[in-house]
């Protein structure tokens, strides 16, 4: 009922001058990956800034980019490759803050598959997430010179579901994992770390920027919206830093917000610990060098690049400059 009221309320004032309502669309289901926002809400950081923030969890069929295009959110959490690809499709997304300094994406392989270096990927089956998350993988493969269309000498790509079963069932030699989630599920399943070989995108020099905050370009021209976003980013980063420092408490806050009730304390506490490593060192401001590296990596896609030309104005420090100034 309460949510219904908020929704009705949002619909009623959404077009008016009262710009202090913010709707945030997450990239995936409620989990510690988004702890900063939930902490900022639970600890009243948003409230202190005079914001009324609604956090919408995502899911396998929800593309944050599509939600923001449809006006269903003011700001979204998205990975830079997907955001840049959407920008090329004519949806002018702009990065306003980058809470995640480093990438948590890895390829995790069973040692028994005989893989020791990326060169061994040839003729193996690799599990990859799609739905906008495949871009970093595709650009890495094309840099390695491995075809992904199933031809001989290339790699066979399988779209993995939402879990690590393809590796456990040996349907794939390697699967995509995040340092904060799936990797630990493999370990939980009883496979020890020395039975695994992992390739971090970060170490391979193909890392792309992950969870950042994106808004639509035309709305940024509005000073009132700018002001709201400054407050939002400031409060969110306060939430992130709190979550980093109080990782267990943050995990419990996330658990409080998980409406499926199916998440466990174990998973979330561990996830929060790993997430803290990725947000460490970011004050919210985008590292332009890292963004340019992301662009370069995406452009280097060989015959089938993820984006065809370097984007202009895909990020701005306008918001973080103000948010971090005081």
């Amino acid at each position: 009922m309460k949510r219904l009221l908020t929704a009705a309320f949002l619909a009623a004032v959404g077009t008016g001058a009262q710009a202090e309502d913010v709707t945030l669309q997450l990239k995936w289901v409620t989990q510690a990956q988004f702890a900063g926002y939930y902490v900022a809400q639970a600890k009243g950081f948003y409230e202190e800034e005079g914001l009324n923030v609604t956090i919408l969890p995502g899911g396998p069929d929800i593309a944050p980019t599509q939600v923001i295009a449809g006006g269903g959110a003011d700001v979204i959490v998205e990975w830079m490759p997907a955001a840049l690809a959407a920008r090329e499709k004519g949806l002018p997304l702009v990065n306003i803050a980058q809470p995640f300094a480093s990438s948590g994406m890895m390829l995790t392989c069973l040692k028994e598959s005989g893989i020791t270096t990326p060169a061994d990927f040839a003729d193996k089956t690799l599990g990859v997430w799609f739905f906008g998350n495949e871009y970093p993988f595709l650009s890495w493969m094309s840099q390695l010179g491995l075809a992904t269309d199933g031809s001989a000498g290339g790699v066979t790509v399988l779209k993995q579901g939402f879990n690590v079963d393809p590796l456990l069932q040996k349907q794939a030699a390697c699967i995509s994992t995040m340092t904060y989630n799936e990797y630990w599920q493999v370990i939980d399943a009883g496979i020890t770390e020395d039975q695994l070989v992992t390739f971090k995108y970060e170490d391979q020099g193909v890392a792309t920027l992950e969870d950042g905050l994106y808004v639509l370009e035309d709305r940024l021209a509005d000073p009132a919206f700018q002001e709201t976003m400054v407050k939002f980013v400031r409060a969110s980063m306060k939430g992130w830093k709190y979550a980093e420092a109080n990782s267990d408490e943050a995990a419990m806050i996330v658990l409080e917000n998980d409406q499926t009730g199916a998440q466990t304390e174990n998973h979330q506490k561990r996830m929060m610990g790993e997430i803290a490593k990725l947000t460490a060192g970011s004050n919210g401001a985008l590292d332009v060098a890292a963004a340019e590296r992301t662009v370069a990596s995406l452009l280097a896609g060989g015959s089938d690049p993820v984006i065809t030309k370097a984007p202009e104005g895909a990020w701005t420090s306008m918001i973080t400059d103000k948010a971090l100034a005081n």
Partner: protein
Amino acid sequence: MSALWLAVGFWLAAWALNVLLAGSFLARTRAGRALVPLLFGVAVLVLWEGLVRGLNVAPVILPAPSVIAAKIGAELPVLWQDFAQTILKGAIPGFVIGAGAAFVTAIAIDRSPFLQRGLLPIGNFVAALPIVGLAPILVMWFGFDWQSKAAVVVVMVFFPILVNIVAGLQSSERMQRDLMATWGASYWQTLWKLRLPAAMPFIFNGLKIASTLALIGAIVAEFFGSPVYGMGFRISTEVGRLGLDMVWATIAVAALAGSVFYGLITLIERWVTFWHPSQRH
């Protein structure tokens, strides 16, 4: 804005024409019966096009039919590959295996009223269950390729078909069965000559229900892991890439495939059950 008004105008004109057609002698001809729904479909597409153009709906929200049609034309090989993977390898083998298994099971339990009484309520119950929930589990068991999709389809179609066959086999009348008995017909002769033909309307009813389930099952299962082609894969991936024109192109193919599949079963039904009152025109 004018595009919108044009479209609305076209819609009204088409509707008026349909009302005229439906009232005229043409409505009794085969051509008329095909023309009216066709005109209606075209009018809906035109209205859609007008809405999208007139209201400037962003293509990442809802692409116009013309854009989708262009996409279908441009991406035929990809669409064919997806179709082959999902329908030809996933849905149809699954449907055939499921229907075959249901048939064998129905015959196997036919001689045991005890088993029938036990299996029928359970079958009826399972037929009403949200079997789609099994999709992630079956993908885990049978791998990511078409085998797991076929498995989902088998499970989804098995019970509706089984229940209908069992009900159909019981539909011949006592008097008819007695007549066969007086002729000295064996169990198998009675089954073949009387009870199976009598069961056909029921069986086809089950097959029709199962045909739409088969498509849903094959597509949902692809959401939980698949190779990098297939209709479910295409839909979920292209939504993430904001390639909405491709999503709708795939939906169009799915609708077409579903209708053809359904139509095919209806045709076979007409041919097999020509004697049934519902087929007399």
